[in-house]
């Protein structure tokens, strides 16, 4: 049992990270912490992919002419490079939104925002006649 766990310790770490991230996304009321949770969650998936591509004893997949060389699978790395870019974009966009939310509501705590939403909305209409309902 222990050996089995030890043999797949990378997956165990992935799972721990994944659950940590997901828990933060769901349970934290602070928007920034949610964002951090999301990043951890996504990173765990990156690790998962990369450990999929790792061959035991494999080296970087650069041809050296020796047919006996073991190579790691490069494809997951390429995929994850793309996924990292997507992750960065997601985080950046999320943080940008949080800044705007903080500006508009004066808080980044979800419960406070909900309370503020109920009171009144920030209306900045372009037309003079307009006035947001509620």
């Amino acid at each position, binding site marked *: 049992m222990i050996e089995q766990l030890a043999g797949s310790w990378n997956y165990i770490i992935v799972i721990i990270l994944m659950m940590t991230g*997901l828990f933060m*996304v769901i349970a934290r009321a602070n*928007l920034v912490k*949610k*964002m951090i949770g*999301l990043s951890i*969650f*996504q990173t765990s*998936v990156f690790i*998962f*992919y990369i450990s*999929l591509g790792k061959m035991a004893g494999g080296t970087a997949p650069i041809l050296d002419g020796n047919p006996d060389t073991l190579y790691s699978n490069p*494809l*997951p790395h390429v*995929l994850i490079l*793309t*996924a990292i870019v*997507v992750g960065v*974009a*997601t985080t950046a*966009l*999320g943080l940008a*939104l*949080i800044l*705007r*939310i903080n500006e*508009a*509501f004066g808080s980044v705590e979800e419960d406070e*925002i909900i309370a503020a*939403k109920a009171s009144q*909305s*920030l*209306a*900045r*209409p*372009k*037309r003079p*006649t*307009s*006035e*947001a*309902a*509620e």
Partner: protein
Amino acid sequence: MMGAAILTNLPALLVVVPLLLAPFSAVLPIAGLAWVLALVGTGISFLAALMLQSVTENGVRISYHLGNWEPPWGIEFVVDSASSLTLVVMSGLGFLATLAARRLVAIEIADKDSGKFYAAWLLVVGGLFGLVMTADAFNLFVFLEISALASVILIGMGAGTDRRALVAGYHYLVIGAVGATFYVIGVGFIYAITGTLNMGDMASRLPDAAGGAALYVGFGFMVAGMLVKAAIFPVHIWLPAAYGYAPSAVSTMLAAIATKAALYVLARIFFTIFAGTPEIVDIALSNIIVPLAVGGIFVGTIMAIYEADIKKMFAHSSVAQIGYIALGLALATPAGISAGFIHIGNHALIKGGIFMAIGGFVAALGARASLETITGIGRRMPITATAFLICGLSLAGLPLTAGFISKLYLVRAILETDSYVILALVLISSALSVVYLWKVMEVMWMQPAPARSPKLVENPAIYLPLWMVALGNIWFGIDAGWIVGAARLAATALLGGGA
């Protein structure tokens, strides 16, 4: 030479043109010009989609190899009858929504932001097209995120009139990112089993692959992720706020085309990737998707009945309508899938028209459209309100409108499978949907305008797209031959196996 080059590259152009025009519209100094770019981009996509559709009508399956790399090594775009129908619907409505966007955006978005607005707009549209065409499971995730991130930007731009748009956008971002990541996890498992990312390849290798638990886990994660994107109950929670607080033009575009793409991808997961392992697909469809779809139909309808804000009301209604589409697809019979595809097209027409008209109301009112503010609007803005009425009747499923055709084929498909309980539930929910439509129409047409209400100016700029959609609802209700035939072909293509 040039003509031939364009013809062979149609699938690529469909995606590349909007995506490449996007940065230019972001840096253009004149707001009007950015709109023209968006119009050109969606227009070209629409033409390309129509041409693709005419090619695939005869059962031809186009396989386009990006960079001329043979699949499964390279990324492959596949256009068959199923994806071409979805593309035509999405690009057509995308084009009309762009046509309507000019005036709505001019009112709701600051001029200095409108270049960025149209850039994001083009990214969403192009990303969704790619989502539908790509046969590479990981490339799909990239397109998914391109369109999702861009739509978060669009939704957030609603903050100019209502700050709640920011929170709606944030929630969509977080929930959407979790969904997309789930999908990626799923793809990882399936990749681990099969060693390929090409959907067709996955399908052919899965039956022999010693998958075991990994197969179930991968399948579950992929489906769960796409359920979030398609806004299927109970992971639809991001949708009402996102559509409700987004700028009107964005609500129109998203409601008409965004969830359609995710639904289409769901269908591809079920019927293409896992075509070789029907046992888990059947279990998932009949035990999970069907109950969820029916649940969504009810939850969406009931929430719509209790909602006073018009945009959110129809956003809830979208949840219900997505349930109808998902239900059709989940029946997994040729009749059911074609019913789903018919409703993909018709619902795009219905919701496109409804949100366009609401945009017209909001623009004229200068305030959110709620049951209070639109009182008596039928007489104050007759042209917009009549188009709204037509689309509403179509949503209710009255004969001679497109909505009727959808309901008819869905009911027939359900009957074929002898599931009378589901039939009864669908009929009840369909009757319930009359309730909220009646509430809106009653307020609009049968109550006098409040005293001292300002005179409302109609918005002629949206007449053309709005009425094209409204008349489309009638046209496809009278001459349903095209969509029914195309949907049937789509069902055959999907169920025929292969990518």
